[in-house]
């Protein structure tokens, strides 16, 4: 057994986290920053942070992930990181010439109390920021929240740094997609354009972390939302924020600073959440939902009705991020599957409340925990106490899946050992079919593997 020391008995822990279902803020800020065109993310802290974040994102996307670091030394930790950051900005603009730099802090710079606002202002005053270039930033103390918090904070930083309210409203909707894959962002844009909905979506990492192999490396990839478009979002008629954890703060800021009213909706994972997404987008953009969506939806519904016997009553354990887990749980319930164990390292009381509310009727005994020590060790112990038919989560789940022989669908961040997530969306109706194909595939593979010869089925 790979996790042979994990006991079945759950002992309460007050201090120790084992096999976390989250990581720290800065990586989320780095990912969000990559969703702005021409933006070079910068990590204000020790080299290690930047190196770790770049490595983790690189392994997940198998694509270049560029970012600078302030390379703190003991000296800077004592005297503050201003000198390093000023130097870093000057160097990045001189050597790599990005349109803008997006700085996020770290536990180090936060602990010593570096004031990014002041330092960035100084950089501008000192002429370290060339004409026409921009510097945006956000605070991402690693000891608060999770990688999702960091993503949210950078989204807010993007709004603060780039969104402009001119007073001349533009007939467009801001779409904050939340922490999803480039494939998902691509699909959200397709849905909007298919609908004739005029949107500005950011961040948008498509064509940034899923770039083509052409033999020519572009340090400034084609993708990312342009600074101009983001600026215009201050004049939009409405903001749709996908995911309360990743997108709500930025939407709030757009409201308070630019008077753009907002609505928080779920990431469109699965049937019901996509129904709400499509309706909300149509309403916000004041367009009708075209008939093509009746067909798209109908194809998902068709697969569900055709295959329900393989899903009905199957128990599922899942771990990941709240904004995904909530609609995913709802989708499982629409499939008559039974969400049985759910953990997320990301804190936020709303999470367990929402999950319990969703599960109240069909899965009242669901085990759910989030925040500190809501980790994969606990999830594994729960599974040992109540086995499941399916495990859904990031690549770290493979250790539990192999030990317990549970069909496993890779979903969330990070996925380090399979490809596909960058290219095939799991959002929208078609994304729902993909999720179904994955879930059915692994469960049916087990049926085929374990079937007695007399029960081996040709048709399923």
């Amino acid at each position, binding site marked *: *057994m790979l996790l*042979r*020391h994990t*006991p079945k008995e759950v*002992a309460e822990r007050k*201090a*120790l*986290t*084992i*096999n*976390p279902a*989250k*990581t*720290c*803020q800065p990586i989320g800020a780095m990912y969000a920053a990559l969703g702005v065109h021409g933006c070079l993310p910068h990590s204000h*802290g*020790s*080299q*290690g*942070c930047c190196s*770790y*974040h770049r*490595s*983790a994102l*690189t*392994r997940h996307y198998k694509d*270049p992930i*560029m970012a*600078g*670091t302030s*390379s703190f*030394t*003991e000296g800077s*930790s004592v005297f503050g990181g201003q000198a390093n*950051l000023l*130097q*870093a*900005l000057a*160097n*990045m603009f*001189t*050597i*790599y010439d990005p349109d803008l730099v997006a700085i996020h802090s770290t*536990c*180090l710079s936060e*602990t010593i109390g570096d004031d990014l606002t002041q330092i960035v202002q100084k950089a501008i005053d000192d002429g370290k920021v060339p004409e026409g270039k921009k510097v945006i930033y956000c605070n991402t*103390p*690693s*000891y*608060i929240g999770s990688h999702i918090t960091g993503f949210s904070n950078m989204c807010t930083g993007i709004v603060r740094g780039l969104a402009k309210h001119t007073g001349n409203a533009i007939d467009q909707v801001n779409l904050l997609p939340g922490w999803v894959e480039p494939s998902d962002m691509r699909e959200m844009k397709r849905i909007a354009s298919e609908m004739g909905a005029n949107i500005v979506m950011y961040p948008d990492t498509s064509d940034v972390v899923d770039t083509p*192999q*052409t*033999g*020519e*490396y572009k*340090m400034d990839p084609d993708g990312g939302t342009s600074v101009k478009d983001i600026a215009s979002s201050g004049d939009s008629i409405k903001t749709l924020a996908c995911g309360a954890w990743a997108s709500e703060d930025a939407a709030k800021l757009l409201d308070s600073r630019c008077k753009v009213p907002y609505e928080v909706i779920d990431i469109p994972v699965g049937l019901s959440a996509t129904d709400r997404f499509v309706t909300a987008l149509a309403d916000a953009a004041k367009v009708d939902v075209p008939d093509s969506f009746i067909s798209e939806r109908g194809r998902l519904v068709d697969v569900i009705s055709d295959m329900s016997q393989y899903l009905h009553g199957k128990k599922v354990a899942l771990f990941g991020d709240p904004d995904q887990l909530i609609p995913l749980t709802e989708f499982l319930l629409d499939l008559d599957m039974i969400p049985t164990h759910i953990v997320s*390292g990301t804190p936020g009381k709303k999470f367990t409340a929402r999950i319990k509310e969703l599960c109240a009727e069909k899965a009242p005994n669901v085990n759910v925990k989030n925040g*500190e*020590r809501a980790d994969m060790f606990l999830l594994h112990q729960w599974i040992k106490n109540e086995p499941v038919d399916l495990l859904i989560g990031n690549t*770290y789940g493979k250790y539990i899946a192999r030990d317990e022989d549970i069909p496993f669908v890779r979903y969330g961040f990070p996925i380090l050992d399979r490809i596909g997530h960058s290219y095939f969306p799991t959002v929208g109706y078609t994304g729902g079919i993909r999720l179904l194909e994955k879930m059915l595939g692994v469960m049916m593979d087990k049926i085929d593997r374990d079937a007695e010869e007399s029960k081996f089925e040709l048709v399923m």
Partner: protein
Amino acid sequence: MSENTKLPDPSTLKKEILAKYPAKVARKRSKSLIINDQKLDQEIQSNVRTIPGIITQRGCTYAGCKGVVLGPTRDIINLVHGPIGCSFYAWLTRRNQTDPGPEGPDGENFMTYCFSTDMQDDNIVFGGEKKLAEAIQEAYDIFKPKAIGVFSTCPVGLIGDDVHAVSRQMKEKLGDCNVFGFSCEGYKGVSQSAGHHIANNQLFRHVVGNDDTKPESKFNINLLGEYNIGGDGFEIDRIFNKCGINVVCTFSGNSTMGAFEKSHTADLNLVMCHRSINYMAEMMETKYGIPWMKVNFIGADSTAKGLRKIGEYFEDDELKARIEEVIAEEMPAVEAKVEAARKRSVGKLAMLFVGGSRAHHYQELFKELGMETVSAGYEFGHRDDYEGRKVLPTIKVDADSRNIEELKVIADPERFNPRASDIKLKTLQEKGLEVSDYRGMMPDMADNSLIVDDISHWETDKLIEFYKPDVFCAGIKEKYVVQKMGIPLKQLHSYDYGGPYAGFQGAINFYSDIEMILSTTIWKKLKAPWLTKETDPCICAEFVA
């Protein structure tokens, strides 16, 4: 290009590179870009601060301490005191392999687990010592480990948590568990390197020498600076085994606390990764009188060479004979494979920018493949890794190195026992055995090859443009950047999830993998046919001197 063609002069390249930099940066970087010339004793600036914003390969002290040195040990719980990320990123990402050990499949192995105190803001404000103590207690209660190592992350030092005091208290409280801490905050030093040193110190201080049980067998050695990535250590153990050489302890591939505790009973220390472990070798020599030799088991020839060194050292004819037998048994397969691979590899160009020894060691394998290393450099090496230990006296201690603890080590009153006389060591050294010595990378590299310490992305970009290498060796952050330029990148930290590459079998694996890379069709099909019919230049480029 044939193996002895002269390399082109990269001076213009160096100029172009520096031209882009602000003056101060250019001045600093120029000292770290050296055009190799065997006739000159050139100094290369290294182990100095990375220039902020330049886009470096480097990581932090914590990574070098927890990730590199302690990571591979199976039966210690490595508890990271800090926010969650530091522990999360070091979770199973280094491919240190471990076998179940004598206890079999149920033997202790905590390497698949990730432990953290997951510091929250109130811990930053009010201090995290209490939470740390609690976490140690909980880890002990659940897993009953022999040892718990506590690793400090950036905030810990700043808020003044005393991990050593907490560890001491918990060690006493728990009684049968060796708890000790590491002040390896990420901001210490200038790279992973400082973390190696800190890890060496604490292992030496808290573990080495705790068990005086003498080994039964003959020819007892420790292998230092081998981390069993991709199973390298397994392959080396296989060879030692065949030769009748007994490894008391490997630092720290596939290691256990028990082995560390007994390691001072060995009669010879072999140093693989000089950068990360030389401190341990020196301290053990001073305290216990164990001599050390630099070896390199990367490359079939150097593996043979390394084995022969051991034979020489032990001055045992039977052992020497056995070693020759083993080499004779292993080489035919190696030669057969290299022959096949050379059909594709001879004359191809390689570049290596990685680690603190690998960029040197792996040149051996490329040499065996008839490939030219046109440029190389370390991520966190020191001058002695480039120029050889002869320069040690001349290396000035700067602010960053100064604050990394230097253990005061003296000969152990009872246990100091010089395994070899100074005369013997002198003679061996004269035979070129690198006793207590390492000659570094530069002497092994061709003239006009470009040596670059702590390479930046910009420099990588320009070097590739200039050399159009056939294989670029670096790490995961560089992997897809370089490949997007049409150049296959071979990861030398993770081996691209392959390996082992050490020893004889490892050499065969490496030859095959390079052969595979060089014969991969897709590199010839990068361009959309409607854009151009000619095949992609990068791969078929032969260097024109």
